[in-house]
């Protein structure tokens, strides 16, 4: 597989949002099949500060599932298309569109997707967006094109939460999937770990050390309102949302070692203990149906992933391939487990088919941590190290395409991929 990495395709995107650390994205590898698509420049009316077609090209190229052709021409969704010429350049489909400034200052973004073989439109839409959301409009169009042509939902309008450390300042950040539009809901002199998105994407749970010990907070992104939902004696950590958003599983140390409890997500009330071992139980993750929790436990002498019914019952061991398997995350369809595994003293992200398949190592860096699934299950994001710094990587679950997100200023770690935008 590694020969495929050898620069079959390399896309370098330099992004420098004003006032933020410069982020750099490197993409290597290509998907098993690449759909050739031509994306023309969008016709513009009035002052248009964002190249929407460029956002769509970047998204589809980085997905690894498309070979993007730039026909070097502007084509509005109402103009006649030279199907023969575009087909001759290898494009099976073509995107045309326009961006027009409206009287109220917002923008009308329109696109049309054509099949060059059948020579007819197969999708199209009109979106009205304020200036600040023009990139998002591009991401949404990329999502629609991706879904129409691959049959799977796109993740281009999703967001990612992660933590940066620059000198002694920690930031919890939220950014678009491509690293743009970075916002920092929390800045602290003390560490922040384990961000977790509420299922509706409006809140983040995380562990902050600002009280000189680990405490679990729930943070409403739109208002900045924070609630310390788990601030018990001892350590409080590892928040995981139930699929209905009402319950958090957390690791508490009320009886000595870490054990898993359920609490109300809104106010931390009604704490009830779920695991009962004389060992470490931590890193809970709900199954998508909300009926099971996967978690890390060293009850057998070394850390392994186990599963327990949320209604209570016996724990079942899930991982076996190494003496160190931690950090379980379940794919959105419930079929695949991503976890951290140690092999020969190095740490990798591995996948396991939960229907009984083998454990396969997905990554090759050796310093990996913190896997997190994209909401369409096609990608796993994680931390690794490059040149002595923590950087974020995303690997397609088939291992063919990888993206690296690094910052010029410091460490980027603890990624949590957000849900689909509503």
């Amino acid at each position, binding site marked *: 597989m590694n020969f495929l990495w050898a620069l079959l395709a390399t896309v370098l995107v330099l992004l420098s949002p004003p006032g933020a650390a410069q982020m750099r994205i490197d993409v290597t590898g290509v998907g098993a099949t690449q759909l050739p698509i031509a994306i023309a420049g969008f016709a513009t009316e009035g002052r248009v500060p964002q190249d929407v077609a460029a956002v769509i090209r970047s998204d589809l190229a980085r997905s690894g599932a498309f070979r993007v052709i730039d026909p070097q021409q502007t084509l509005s969704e109402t103009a006649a298309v030279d199907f023969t010429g575009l087909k001759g350049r290898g494009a099976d489909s073509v995107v045309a569109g326009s961006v027009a400034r409206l009287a109220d200052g917002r923008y009308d973004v329109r696109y049309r997707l054509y099949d060059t073989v059948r020579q007819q439109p197969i999708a199209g839409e009109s979106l009205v967006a304020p200036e600040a959301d023009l990139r998002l409009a591009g991401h949404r169009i990329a999502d629609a094109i991706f879904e129409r042509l691959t049959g799977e939902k796109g993740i281009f309008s999703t967001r990612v939460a992660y933590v940066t450390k620059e000198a002694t300042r920690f930031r919890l950040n939220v950014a678009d999937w491509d690293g743009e539009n970075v916002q920092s809901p929390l800045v602290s002199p003390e*560490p922040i*770990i*384990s961000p977790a998105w509420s299922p509706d994407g409006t809140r983040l749970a995380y*562990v902050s*050390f600002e009280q*000189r*010990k*680990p405490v679990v907070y729930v943070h409403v992104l739109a208002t900045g309102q924070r609630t310390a939902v788990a601030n018990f*004696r*001892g*350590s409080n*950590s*590892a928040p995981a949302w139930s699929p209905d958003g009402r319950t958090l599983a957390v*690791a508490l*140390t009320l009886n*000595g*070692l*870490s054990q898993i409890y359920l609490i109300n997500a809104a106010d931390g009330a009604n704490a009830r203990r779920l695991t009962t071992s004389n060992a*470490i139980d*931590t*890193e809970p993750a709900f199954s998508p149906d909300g009926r099971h929790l996967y978690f*890390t436990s060293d009850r057998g002498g070394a*850390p392994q992933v186990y599963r327990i019914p949320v209604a209570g019952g016996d724990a079942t061991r899930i991982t076996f391939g190494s003496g*160190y398997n*931690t*950090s379980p995350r379940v794919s959105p369809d419930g079929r695949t487990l991503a976890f*951290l595994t*140690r092999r020969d003293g190095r*740490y990798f992200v591995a996948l396991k088919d939960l229907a009984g398949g083998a454990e396969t190592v997905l990554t090759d860096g050796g310093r990996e*941590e*913190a896997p997190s699934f994209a909401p369409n299950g096609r990608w796993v994001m994680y931390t690794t190290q490059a040149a002595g710094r923590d950087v974020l990587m995303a690997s397609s679950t088939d291992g063919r395409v990888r993206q690296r997100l690094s910052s010029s200023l410091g460490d980027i770690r*603890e990624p949590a991929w957000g849900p689909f935008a509503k």
Partner: protein
Amino acid sequence: MTRTALLARLAALGAAVALAGCSSAVKLDEPAPVENRTGSGAAGAGGPGGPAEGGAAGGVRPGGTTPGSERPVQQVTVDPSKDPMNDPSNPLSRRSIYFDFDSFTIRDEFRPVVEAHAKFLVSNKARRIVVQGNTDERGSREYNLALGQKRAEAVRRALNALGVADAQIEAISFGEEKPKALGGDETAMAENRRADIVYQ
């Protein structure tokens, strides 16, 4: 605090400042001591001093008086190195307990440290401590947090078994998040496999 004691402490402070001003023996390139927290009270993780070990017990010596004065003043000089919390010959000055890789057992060499703090806490019921567990940087952050808790818990249980009340101890973990030593080499990682006793 009585007026006499206050004056005595002020005088002592003056003497300490004067001494510090004269001192020129510190070599700038000398590496800072890591395990031995023998510096002034502000250094190190634990807050030293406190009502119990202040006063005349050990750390304070009487000075001279002015002959014939009708309002005698006795000078007292505080020597921070005689504070039991900072006296290197006193096990209370040691507040870090180191662990082997993947181990949560208190090594024999740290038994006297735990016993000294237990004895102090049993006879000073008002004092409270936080035991902070730490780990090296390898592997999962959350699992390391749980491993740090296991180290803090080992110290908590040992103190508990020696008679220290539950209410006097809180065991918490920093996991790999607040490393004392940076760098991924074995020396740094060993330095971070540690539980610290911190007086509140």
